[in-house]
């Protein structure tokens, strides 16, 4: 499908090459025959595009000029590509002295402005096609050497290449079999780029009178000639300018599209990356009764585009969270727990779409607001103030160019703090236990340890006294002792900020036991069990929860058993209970349809048909 994008530039470039190749066979006038009587005449039946300052036919000069310009560009590119690629591969593969010589030479040649290098060579050897080809090839060789060198280096470190080297296969064979296919894509892009550059340089040199030797036509030469008569015959100037720019444009377009096909990241549409604002739900709110707690998620369903239409990655999830309570959201990766948390703060990745449900948040005034239907402007006022979030990887989640103090100030200023904030920043850093707060405020994130960075993230999150803290695996990227410290810090902060509710997303049951009041277990996009931590851990009412507990390395190491099987792909969900393929208690009825939610006890729920039989 993406290959279609190559059609237009492919046809343009192909057509251009065809005309250039077929030039001498076409029924066109002799491009060098002069006709003094017809000097500078405009278009006529015999000369469609008119005649130039010597009365030569402009159209045939354009076509034959294309032949000359393109053949010089293509031949010199191929020459530069072959030599440069070889040098680059040798430098990248054999390293050592070969690397030194080839890459340093390339770097030095690259220090010459290309046009200058070309001027010099042409002056030394005299103008003419052969000289031009030679000098363009020299100019372009280093660029190919660099591309091939970089690609070779990256391929060389791949496991299968290392393995072949270890097996003692001849270097040439390894290079031919493994390197070439891998470095071909960047080289192809470089090729079309270079033909375009060669056209530019050739025409520039011809324009200066140092390239193609008259009377042979070339676009650069035609522009040079037309320039002398441009006041009387501006059209004469227009045609070669158009032809030249059009040809280079077609080549650049081809190169652009090639890049797009090889690396589709730059294309796509919609606001890019995390800049995306997810559309508010149009459907009316289900109009259910106002919730008792701080946050109530009801019937949340999220979809992504799958290979055969949209698939639900989160289906019908309902949760409640009271003020001052900590709810742990547990599950394997891909269970939809992080997506659920991100929905609440309106920062879903651009591929995910909210389809149904409501997220009711009760604000400081006691008014319940549906976060899924709140306009971005209002949601932004809540973000960082009422709703705060801590992310998994503190090293990538902090802008590397901002000092710690600036990170905190940004949160404060986004919510109308004014004046000097230095004292507040220091106080926050002290609160999260950063050593020497005034000095820490002046540091950059890369000067902190992972644990310290996460403390900065936490300080920024609590800066405006939020009411709901969303923590997405906040300790996963840290080592064990630091994990414990961060959990302690979070527990302490909850004490200090009375009424702060926390939604803690994790896959680690040991962490759940330490920090939360209640636990909600997610599997394959569904909530399968919910209840108070102690009760759920003591007597799980869903086989998946039981299996998770059994596989936790905490305590008895001999009971460490991974759950057999894998989470089903989101577009290939079992028709009935989604856990059935991996469930040790599954019966045929389990496949009949999604099991209804059962309430084994007040405040507990499970999505299993056989919960009563679980001992």
């Amino acid at each position, binding site marked *: 499908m993406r290959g279609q994008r190559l059609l237009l530039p492919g046809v343009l470039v192909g057509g251009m090459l065809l005309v250039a190749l077929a030039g001498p066979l076409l029924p066109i006038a002799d491009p060098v025959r002069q006709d003094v009587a017809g000097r500078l005449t405009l278009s006529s039946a015999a000369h469609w595009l008119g005649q130039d300052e010597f009365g030569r036919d402009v159209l045939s000069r354009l076509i034959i000029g294309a032949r000359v310009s393109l053949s010089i560009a293509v031949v010199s590119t191929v020459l530069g590509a072959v030599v440069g690629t070889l040098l680059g591969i040798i430098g990248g593969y054999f390293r050592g002295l070969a690397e030194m010589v080839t890459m340093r030479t390339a770097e030095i040649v690259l220090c010459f402005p290309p046009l*200058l290098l070309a001027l010099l060579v042409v002056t030394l050897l005299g103008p003419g096609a052969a000289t031009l080809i030679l000098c363009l090839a020299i100019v372009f060789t280093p660029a190919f050497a660099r591309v091939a060198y970089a690609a070779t280096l990256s391929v060389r470190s791949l496991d299968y290449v290392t393995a072949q080297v270890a097996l003692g296969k001849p270097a040439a064979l390894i290079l031919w079999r493994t390197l070439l296919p891998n470095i071909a894509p960047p080289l192809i892009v470089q090729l079309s780029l270079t033909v375009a550059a060669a056209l530019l340089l050739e025409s520039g040199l011809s324009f200066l009178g140092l390239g193609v030797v008259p009377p042979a036509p070339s676009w650069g030469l035609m522009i040079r000639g037309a320039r002398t008569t441009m006041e009387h015959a501006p059209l004469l100037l227009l045609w070669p300018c158009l032809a030249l720019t059009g040809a280079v444009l077609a080549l650049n377009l081809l190169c652009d599209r090639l890049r797009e096909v090889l690396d589709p*990241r730059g294309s796509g549409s919609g606001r*890019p990356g995390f*800049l995306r604002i997810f559309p508010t739900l149009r459907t009316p709110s289900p109009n259910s009764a106002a919730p008792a707690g701080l946050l109530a998620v009801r019937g949340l369903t999220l979809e992504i585009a799958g290979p055969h239409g949209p698939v639900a990655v989160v289906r019908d999830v309902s949760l409640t969270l009271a003020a001052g309570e900590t709810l742990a959201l547990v599950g394997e990766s891909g269970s939809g727990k992080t997506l659920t948390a991100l929905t609440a703060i309106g920062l879903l990745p651009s591929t995910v779409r909210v389809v149904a449900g409501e997220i009711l948040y009760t604000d400081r005034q006691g008014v319940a607001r549906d976060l899924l239907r709140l306009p971005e402007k209002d949601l932004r006022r809540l973000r960082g103030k009422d709703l705060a979030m801590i992310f998994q*990887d503190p090293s990538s989640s902090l*802008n590397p*160019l901002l000092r710690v103090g600036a990170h905190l100030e940004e949160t404060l200023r986004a919510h109308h703090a004014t004046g000097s904030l230095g004292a507040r920043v220091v106080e926050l850093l002290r609160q999260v236990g950063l050593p020497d707060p005034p000095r820490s405020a002046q540091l950059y994130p890369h000067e902190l340890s992972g644990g310290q960075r996460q403390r900065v993230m936490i300080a920024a999150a609590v800066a405006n006294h939020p009411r709901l803290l969303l923590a997405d695996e906040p300790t996963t990227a840290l080592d064990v002792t630091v994990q414990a410290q961060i959990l302690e810090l979070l527990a302490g902060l909850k004490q200090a900020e009375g009424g702060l509710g926390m939604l803690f997303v994790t896959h680690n049951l040991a962490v759940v036991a330490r920090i939360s009041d209640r636990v909600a277990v997610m599997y394959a996009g569904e909530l399968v069990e919910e209840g108070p931590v102690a009760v759920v851990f003591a007597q799980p009412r869903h086989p998946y929860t039981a299996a998770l507990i059994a596989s936790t390395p905490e305590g008895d190491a001999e009971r460490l058993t991974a759950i057999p099987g894998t989470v089903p792909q989101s577009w290939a969900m079992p028709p009935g209970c989604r856990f059935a393929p991996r469930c040790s208690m599954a019966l045929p009825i389990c496949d009949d349809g999604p099991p209804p939610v059962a309430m084994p006890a007040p405040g507990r729920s499970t999505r299993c048909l056989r919960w009563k039989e679980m001992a």
Partner: protein
Amino acid sequence: MVSFLAKRLGFAVITLFCVLTLVFLLVRILPGDPALVILGDQASPESLMALRQRLGLDQPLPVQYARFLMQSVQGDLGRSMISGRPVMDEILTVLPYTLELTMAALLLGALLGVPAGVWAAVKRGRTPDYILRFLSLVGLSLPAFVAAIVLLMVFAIQLRWFPVISAGGANTLAERLRQMALPTLALALIMMAYITRVTRSAMLEVLSQDFIRTARAKGASPSRVIWNHALGNCLIPITTVVGLYLGILIGNSVLTEIVFSRPGLGKLILSALTQRDYTLLQGMIVIYTLMVVVVNLLTDLTYGFLDPRVKYK
């Protein structure tokens, strides 16, 4: 920091040394006797001999080479074979014109190109993005001299808004700006195209990084996220491209200067080439390379100001 600088400087010196050697050898293996070129075919053997002696051409090659190196290091690039003036003087009289043009084009290109790239990235896949992407593609497909000639034809010859020849002689600042406008625009169009493209792709890359999400989670405004967080992190790739294309810009300025009959290195080098003034030619190549090397050094140094993580190891 110091060792990094030393290393970069070392490389710069090696590059310059290689260039000097190359230039020396090229000029010496040239067909044709420079003395004969200068004095013409009718010159008597005695005067030829005398000139060779004066130019030091009668010495053995290694001696000539050593002398050439020594003099170059001291900033003495010899005397022009044609005018007899010191090459350094010849270059220094026209260098300001070229620098002025290049810098103005760079500035204009960056001032227009960076916001255009940001805009295209933010509006990805929408009309402004398509238009800007197409325009920048046209911009970098436009040969420098074609851009110059088209501007000249439309704005100077047809509309007569600007002078056709921008050779010096301007007394007022306004007149000088009027003379510079078209050549600057011709070069800036191409510069802008490059900067727009690199800014767009760098922005797209940065906007999907985690810290952008953090900034939004803090409630930061979209304009702050785009211009402060995202663009700040794009400045390094933009600087790299600007540094790289400054070399091309210097080359392009040769053509532009010639089209506009503007004094500068471009005209000088072309006359050196046509008159076979080898000393002037070798001096100019040394100066050009020096400029590129200096630009590369400056680019490296700029990284340190743009990103606190760059430690110049």
